């Protein structure tokens, strides 16, 4: 039996404890130990971006992070984006702009831009495309995702103004 390492971490604002083999990827720990299946697992070598989550507010590939590494840290997943029944402006804009079809890549895109727009509230289209280059989407051709991100950025700026 492979030894398990006990860890404590914050996930979406809640303290969680689990015991995992050292080699357990954060993506698998979120899905299998905590049943947070919103974090999708695509390529498992850091290329596709589907598993992107926030670690202490910073986007990271969950498939390139071991769960034991986030001991004591705060992990934010796509499940935390909607508040109550209200979708996050990014989620709403992706729907309105047809920025997703199969939805597999969507959680990674949402988490990447949730952090990026927090730090860069008024990006240019080129900047959005540069950041989006880290997330592969095989359905949309990206055009509609770019439009959605720009729309969400505008909505978030309006919200900040009140």
């Amino acid at each position, binding site marked *: 039996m*492979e030894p398990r*390492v006990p860890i404590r971490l914050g996930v979406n604002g809640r303290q969680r404890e689990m015991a995992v*083999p*050292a*080699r357990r*990827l954060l993506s*698998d720990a979120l899905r299998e130990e905590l049943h947070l299946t919103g974090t999708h697992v695509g390529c*498992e*070598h*850091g290329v596709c*971006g589907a598993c*992107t989550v926030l670690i202490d507010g*910073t*986007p*990271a*590939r969950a*498939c*390139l*992070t*071991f769960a*034991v*590494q986030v*001991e004591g840290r705060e992990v934010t997943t796509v499940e935390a984006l909607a508040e109550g029944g209200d979708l996050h402006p990014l989620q709403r804009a992706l729907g309105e702009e047809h920025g997703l079809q199969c939805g597999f890549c969507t959680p990674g895109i949402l988490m*990447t831009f949730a952090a*990026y727009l927090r730090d860069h509230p008024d990006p240019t289209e080129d900047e959005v*495309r*540069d*950041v989006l*280059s*880290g*997330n592969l989407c095989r359905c949309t051709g990206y055009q509609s995702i770019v439009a959605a991100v720009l729309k969400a950025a505008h909505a978030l700026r309006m919200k900040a103004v009140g």
Partner: protein
Amino acid sequence: MKPAPFTYHRPETLDDALALLAEHGADASPLAGGQSLVPMLNMRLAQPAHIVDLNGLTELGGVVITDGWLEIGALIRHHQLAHDPVIRAAQPLLAHAAGTIAHYAIRQRGTLGGSLVQADPAGQLPLIARLTDAEVVIRGPRGERRMPVRAFLVFAMEVALEEGELVTAVSFPLLKPGTRWGFELFSRRRGDYALASVATTLTLTNGKIGELRLAIGAAASLPQRLTGLERSARGGVPDAAWIAETARAAAAAAEVEDSPQAPAAFRRELVEVLTHRALTAALTPEPA
């Protein structure tokens, strides 16, 4: 794709990390940002019995300017290289190049030390380190040593690091006042490994080329300095004809690899075009 089992260590001091590496020898692998190592673990191309996680070593996170050198801790992330005001002021070329590495999420995790040790031929940071004659600061069982990047980079993915040693920092000479720079790369998709990249610094003396440095990345197994071209450039008048001629000469002088994805002739063309662009950028007066 899941890694093979390993024992995980998270030392809190550099001395503890070195002790763990000494204890486990070739069975141990240091883990920094993990953006290259963890894919190799996931694909089981690497199966170390022990992982020594360096991310808790605050000693490796400094940015210090001393005696003409900018010393940057090995754990500094690419994103910080690109945005840290001290680094941007002292080494704008390094900051700019770091901002072009891979993707946004990858840049938040990947580290300067990890990139140098990885020694990918297409890596931006080995190229800039080679161009600027940076030195690698190494700690190991026999204490600390410094090594020029030129000697540190042995071959593609191979560096002159002994067993049990860690890169703790990379030291970049400060640019001479008035130094201009350019950096260009070509990749098939944004964020992919480059098929060719060019970095240059130059100074002007009375409107003529003073010191030119020119380095080519991704074209062969190591970043290359075109030293012959650098020497013959001194005193040149940097007009459009000089830029075009220098770019042609760079393409002729560079060692380029031939592969089905990027035939040698294609890479030479890339070197010429990128050199042209990098020199043009370096010679364009900054907006007042």
